[in-house]
């Protein structure tokens, strides 16, 4: 275990104490053993307390934790087989999107995932998980293929946003994202999207149209990264924490707003404290939701998927009908 986030400071001391005691191993005296057990219990308790009351901004830190499991980790832990597809067949291969058919629990599904990089070299290769247009076009190709062969689609979302470079504009980032938004509502196979870390802006939504949208407990989903939102609203990205609170980015806040369908609980202290447990929870969640969607006929499924997004939005009507722009002076 490693506690290294700002708000986890109270836990660090306890952890140190535990490590020191554990290091004694066999030589541990009886009273030290009780001490160890007690400290461990206290650590668990304190962690629970802290994690129960995470603010939106603290959740952002957990969702971006450097040790948080990424899509490739889940693929390794969930799938019996995975064959990665490469390239969009028109320009290139984008490593920020990982996609391909996979075996999970005896059935073939099409995985479409963002992949951030762990070390410097991989981060560079994968552009920090921010896809280029060719990444979305690769995803498009894979999803069309999934429909052709009747494979359910499982997407794992973990991107701060789409890549914001000049080359991306040249190759049509806007069109690449819009195209998947146009495709996904009509795909005649079940789709489940899960936000496993960061879900930011159109870059995340581009693989996020689904019959079920799940979120890991400490993941975040937002219209723009808090830094970007703050610089738009208050002209200063230093106000990011305020933007995060205001936009209600955490899974816990989004569930009651019916913007997502389900929150999958994370291991104590966040997904990075227990990859295996997290992967098992995710797998169970995916399979359960998939089984539920498969109960529906294709037409019912498509109608429900359309309705799900059609009804999102809050508005009111002005009491009196005010004469408006139709008359031009």
């Amino acid at each position, binding site marked *: 275990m490693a506690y290294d986030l700002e708000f986890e400071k109270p836990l660090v001391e306890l952890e140190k104490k535990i490590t020191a005691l554990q290091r004694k191993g066999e030589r541990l005296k009886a009273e030290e053993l009780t001490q160890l057990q007690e400290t461990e219990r206290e650590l668990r308790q304190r962690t629970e307390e802290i994690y129960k009351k995470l603010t939106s901004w603290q959740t952002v830190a957990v969702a971006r934790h450097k040790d948080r499991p990424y899509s490739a980790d889940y693929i390794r832990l969930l799938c019996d087989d995975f064959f990665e597809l490469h390239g969009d067949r028109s320009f290139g291969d984008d490593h920020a999107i990982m996609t391909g058919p996979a075996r999970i629990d005896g059935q073939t599904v099409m995985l479409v995932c963002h992949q951030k990089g762990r070390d410097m070299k991989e981060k560079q290769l994968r552009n920090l998980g921010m896809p280029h247009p060719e990444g979305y076009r690769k995803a498009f190709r894979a999803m069309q293929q999934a429909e052709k062969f009747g494979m359910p689609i499982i997407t794992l979302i973990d991107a701060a946003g789409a890549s914001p470079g000049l080359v991306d504009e040249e190759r049509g980032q806007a069109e690449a994202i819009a195209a998947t938004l*146009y495709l996904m509502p009509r795909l005649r196979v079940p789709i489940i999207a899960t936000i496993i870390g960061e879900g930011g802006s*159109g870059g995340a939504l581009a693989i996020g149209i689904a019959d079920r949208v799940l979120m890991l407990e400490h993941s975040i*989903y937002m219209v723009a990264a808090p830094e970007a939102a703050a610089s738009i609203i208050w002209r200063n990205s230093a106000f990011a924490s305020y933007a995060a609170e205001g936009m209600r*980015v955490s899974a816990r806040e989004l569930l009651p707003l019916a913007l997502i369908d389900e929150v999958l609980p994370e291991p104590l202290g966040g997904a990075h404290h227990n990859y295996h447990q997290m992967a098992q929870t995710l797998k169970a969640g995916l399979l359960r939701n998939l089984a539920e969607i498969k109960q529906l006929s294709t037409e019912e499924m498509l109608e429900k998927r359309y309705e799900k997004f*059609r009804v999102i939005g809050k508005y009111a009507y002005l009491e009196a009908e005010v004469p408006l722009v139709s008359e031009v002076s």
Partner: protein
Amino acid sequence: MAKEASIPLTSQASSSNDAKPKLPDMGNIATKCPKCKEILYNRDWEKNLKVCSRCNYHFKINANERIELLVDPGSFVETDANIISVDPLHFTIQPPSYPDKRTYVEKLQEERNKAGINEAVVIGQATIEKKPLALAVMDAFFIAGTMGSVVGEKITRAIEIGIEQRIPVLIASTSGGARMQEGLYSLMQMAKTSAALARLGEANIPYFSLLTDPTTGGVSASFAMLGDVIIAEPGALVCFTGPRVIEQFMHIKLPEGTVNSEFSLQHGMIDAVVHRRDLRQTLARLLRLYS
């Protein structure tokens, strides 16, 4: 999401201009072109559809003016004018050091009074050279034309008019992107409008997208780029990421007008760049060709 690009008002051009004493309040008589600094008489400028007669700069116009110049006079019938935004997230948090203390609700009220419309898009039905169509026209003067719940809802309803009545749909986009204060609700409007367009497409009804300055962020990455035919006004900022953000991300300086209509045309993202005065005629041709 990109905010609109600011046009630098400090020009390197004609130092003689700067030396002159400042003009008295030009108020209702003249307007200065922000691009070439030409002083334009309002009467001529308005007659020229608010396009600079010297450098062809297309000024931003509001939804009202846009509808007037696009459709047959008197043919526009507005629907759903009375839908207004609420504050779904109770977005009242403010950095204590930030001077502007207006909440989202207060801003909305102010914008409604100032812009004279209830939200950043006006929808309805009209005819262009007698050809009927469903219409959604965005307005950049209402919170920078940003898309929240209401904009998404009204755009979707305009598309639904097209589906129900089997008439083509025209959306004139202008937007700084998604509206931050409505958080994920705003993002989901991209999904909603795109899904509605997919249904329009399944019904084989044409959708024409008109991009005007600026069309950026979540709007460009959804309905704006999904047109069967996409046309843009000259020099309009058209991009997913605004130039300011690209510059920050890449640590470079972009020449002015890098990501605009002409750039998009050159890179194969849109079908035509059309001068404002030719828009109605062009749309009429398209309506005939795609009927």
